[in-house]
């Protein structure tokens, strides 16, 4: 009779099973679909070739990228001064100001976007198709701004005041200190803001659908179309794969900028 030995390692089994079932297996499925021909079921690169030879697809890719980069840039431009003021002055002494900036994040995303649509409609932004892209951009910035404020605020708040005083002591004026010390030291916050905005904006087609008046197709919408309208799982998986590669690339680049202290900054102070 062999006794069943219990070791602490065995506690990991449920997690391992979970990972295998819901992460590894689906990923393998996506890879399988992406590299098989939808008609013959044979191994092929046809899905990728189709994607990169279709003008509509490439346009969607380009628009997604432009939208993502612009949204991120605008969010950072608004969020940095906001976070700086909140972290450095008495304004946010009891955390209420910060809460007001974060609060929209806790209200349903679809509802917020719908409300933004009403707002934009009432000021006449839906009269022409030319404003579709701008509308989508406004919606994206509005939805993702808290994700930029929070990590930057967290980093700025932790910044050692002595270091700023040292800079001033050594002859740097306020703006010199900002560019030579404060911004370089808040890079981890900036990088985590970028990773939290850049990628979701490429796929959150709810915003582009609601505000783009049907004129803005982003990469997330393409995937959705392939799966739920065209029932072409192979093409959809291929696009998902392309996006995945893109995500890894951005992670790699941003990781370079935030070698230190990024782990604790990522995610900010609320979770």
């Amino acid at each position, binding site marked *: 009779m062999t006794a069943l030995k219990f070791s602490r390692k065995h506690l990991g089994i449920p997690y391992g099973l979970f990972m295998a079932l819901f992460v590894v297996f689906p990923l393998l499925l996506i890879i399988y679909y992406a590299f098989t021909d939808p008609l013959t079921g044979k191994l092929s690169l046809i899905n990728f070739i189709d994607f990169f030879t279709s003008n509509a697809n490439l346009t969607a890719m380009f628009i997604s990228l432009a939208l993502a980069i612009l949204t991120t840039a605008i969010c950072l431009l608004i969020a940095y001064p906001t976070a700086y003021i909140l972290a450095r002055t008495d304004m946010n002494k009891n955390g209420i100001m910060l809460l007001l900036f974060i609060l929209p994040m806790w209200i349903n995303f679809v509802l917020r976007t719908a409300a933004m649509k009403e707002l934009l409609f009432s000021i006449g932004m839906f009269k022409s198709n030319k404003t579709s892209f701008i509308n989508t951009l406004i919606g994206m910035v509005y939805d993702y701004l808290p994700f930029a404020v929070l990590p930057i605020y967290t980093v700025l708040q932790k910044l050692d005041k002595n270091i700023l005083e040292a800079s*001033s*002591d*050594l002859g740097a004026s306020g703006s010199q200190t900002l560019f030579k010390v404060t911004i370089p*030291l808040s890079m981890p916050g900036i990088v985590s803001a970028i990773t939290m905005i850049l990628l979701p904006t490429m796929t959150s087609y709810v915003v582009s659908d609601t505000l783009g008046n049907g004129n803005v197709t982003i990469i997330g919408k393409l995937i959705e179309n392939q799966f739920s309208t065209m029932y072409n799982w192979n093409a959809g998986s291929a696009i998902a794969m392309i996006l995945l590669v893109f995500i890894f690339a951005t992670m790699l680049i941003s990781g370079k900028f935030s070698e230190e202290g990024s782990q604790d900054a990522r995610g900010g102070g609320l979770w």
Partner: protein
Amino acid sequence: MDNNEKIIELKGVEKIFDGQTAVEKMDLYIRKGEFVTLLGPSGCGKSTTLRMIAGFEMPTSGQILLNGKDITNVPPYERPINTVFQRYALFPHLNVYDNIAYGLKLKRFKNTYVDKKGKQRVRVERLSKEVIDAKVSRVLKLVDLEEFEKRDVTTLSGGQQQRIAIARAIVNEPEILLLDEPLGALDLKMRKDMQLELKEMHQKLGITFIYVTHDQEEALTMSDTIVVMKDGDIQQIGTPKDIYNEPKNSFVADFIGESNIFSGTMVGDKKVRFINKVFDCVDDFPINEKVDVVVRPEDVFLADEGKGMVDGVIISSIFKGVHYEMTFKVGKTEVVIQDTIERKEGERCSIHIRPDDIHIMAKEFDCNRYDGYITKRNTVCFADGEFECDVTQLYEHSHLDDEGYLVLENGEQIDLTDVDVKVEVGLKDIEIIDNDEDGDACGTIISIVYKGDHYQIIIRTDEEEEDFVVDTEYVWNENDRVSVKIPKDKIKLKLKAVNQK
């Protein structure tokens, strides 16, 4: 250092944070090239003073003059003053070279030159890379960290980071170098080495050093001048020798080195009585005046029983490396003695003190005095508390009637409610109670000084910030929350002049 030129002068400088006074109206000047140490316990305002000189804090009132020019409102980056911070405050995103070169790269200076047409022109220039390189490597050599230029500052040890912080400040050739407890985070051995190195650096560079520390030994080792501070006030300014040998009051004596502090009375011309014996001394004070007597432990000499001035018994003896620290008991009083020859616990012997080793200073408190008023219940209110008292002492031969009115000798009835009085309470008449609630007034112990046979404790009340000075045999801790009780008959009342008949 016989240069008398004042490099920096504080005139009536005061700093108040949210109603709390950190630095009280301070007048201080520092001569060029001096090594000055601001010394005091934590919270005495020494760091705040330094930060005002650096420009990080604006004085609430008063003026700061640098070479005679008012710099009170000049921002830190325009002052020719650099600071070495307690926690180094190096820039973690820059390497050693860039940290040190930070100030040099920002430096701009006006250069006059002659252009092609022969005209004189002025151009604002920055330091060239070669000049910066040379300066950085020179200063790295000075702090013994050559070859460290490319290192990441976060990989350096505490001592190395401290050297970089010093290098980063002195490379700018400031007129004044401020050091805010720069050695606080280092271990003892390293601290001792750095003390000597800093002193050497000061002599080499000829820059004025203003150093802040709570470590009296550090202050004595390094400074030309020591400024002893307490509660935002300067207690004494002097050379290390002066401060050590001639402390102005018992606080300074207690803070600088170890001291025996006794309560004494002047009994004649240069004669003082303490530990039940009359000693000759060199200080002149009026006869019968109550004084504090300070004797350093190393100035008390032991002799065989009957051969010294006062006999007693050794009650403890501890080996301290260089010497033995022994406690000698005379009656109820304990005397701490440092000597290289050990006397065993329980050994009866005698002590001898030389007249010039007896330092006499005016007693700070002989009595607690307050302004108070009488309440309806014939109690007295002062110092955040209400105390029972005997109001009949205000008028001779008076008594209280059943309704609580005071009846004078001639039968006149007076209502004492809200009458202002002067209150006096002796130091020994106040009882300290461990519990917040049980006493008549409560506060926090802000100071405790051992005076030979008793402790002198100062309790500060919360709202009015009045002090109770108490002599007690029992030891308490600083920052303890306590309350005080005063026996009814120990409260001496006097009518204020206006009401006096």
